[in-house]
């Protein structure tokens, strides 16, 4: 059991605790009924996703500043974990919207900017895979990561502003009763731990595959037709 596997076990344990709180401890919402329990993980994974993309942003900025491979690896790790959490957020959001608003999708600011977030960082992962590995991929991915991070609040703002131009049904979410708030805070904390563990694991994977990429070459070069030790 490597230390990463131990951390993973801890994270899973915490999520089980959060799950128990969500389904057993938290009261049922009198207005929306049991489906309201989607809220806990839906919002927690959105926050975790934003956290991951902050890691991508900082990794990108540090890489552009000092070309440190460590920063680039964190950015790579943060991006892929962030996309996973954004996917969870989107799907749960739609599954929650259907029973409440009758449609899977409404162009409200949060959902729209989360969708844009997903597309930008899916594009980030694609750019990273298509560019030649090494400095070029890291540099342009850093720029994409930074622009992506800036674009999300801008999209969120412009869609909210669009709402003011077209007054429509507004989703009122009133303050949470204490038990719900406690469950939410617990779920959020556990989700953030899971995100951190996932990033640590992905970081380790990136480090090893970087080394493996160079390690593989050393073997190839030494066995080149003209071995170094020729008399």
């Amino acid at each position: 059991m490597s230390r990463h596997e131990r951390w993973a076990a801890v994270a899973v344990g915490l999520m089980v605790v959060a799950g128990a709180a969500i389904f057993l401890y938290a009261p049922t919402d009198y207005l929306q009924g049991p489906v309201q329990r989607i809220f806990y993980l839906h919002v927690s994974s959105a926050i975790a996703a934003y956290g991951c993309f902050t890691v991508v942003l900082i990794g990108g900025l540090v890489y552009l500043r000092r070309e440190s491979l460590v920063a680039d690896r964190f950015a790579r790790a943060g991006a892929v974990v962030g996309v996973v959490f954004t996917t969870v957020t989107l799907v749960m959001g739609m599954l929650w919207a259907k029973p409440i608003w009758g449609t899977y999708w409404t162009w409200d600011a949060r959902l729209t900017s989360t969708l844009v977030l997903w597309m930008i960082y899916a594009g980030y992962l694609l750019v990273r895979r298509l560019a030649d590995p090494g400095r070029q991929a890291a540099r342009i991915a850093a720029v994409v990561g930074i622009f992506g991070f800036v674009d999300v609040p801008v999209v969120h703002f412009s869609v909210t502003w669009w709402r003011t131009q077209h007054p429509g049904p507004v989703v009122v979410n009133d303050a949470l009763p204490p038990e719900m708030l406690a469950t939410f805070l617990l779920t959020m904390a556990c989700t953030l731990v899971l995100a951190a563990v996932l990033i640590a694991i992905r970081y380790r994977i990136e480090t090893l595959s970087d080394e493996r990429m160079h390690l593989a070459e050393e073997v190839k070069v030494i066995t080149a037709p003209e071995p170094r030790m020729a008399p």
Partner: protein
Amino acid sequence: MTYLIVAYVFAVALLGGFLGWSLRRLRELEGPTSSGLRR
């Protein structure tokens, strides 16, 4: 009610699957093949 179940089943499947897949990939990379090279 079913939406609630489907939502959480999906979340557990995706997050769990991603965690499992990453751990397996990690085990591969740290496994015998790479340490053999570092002899």
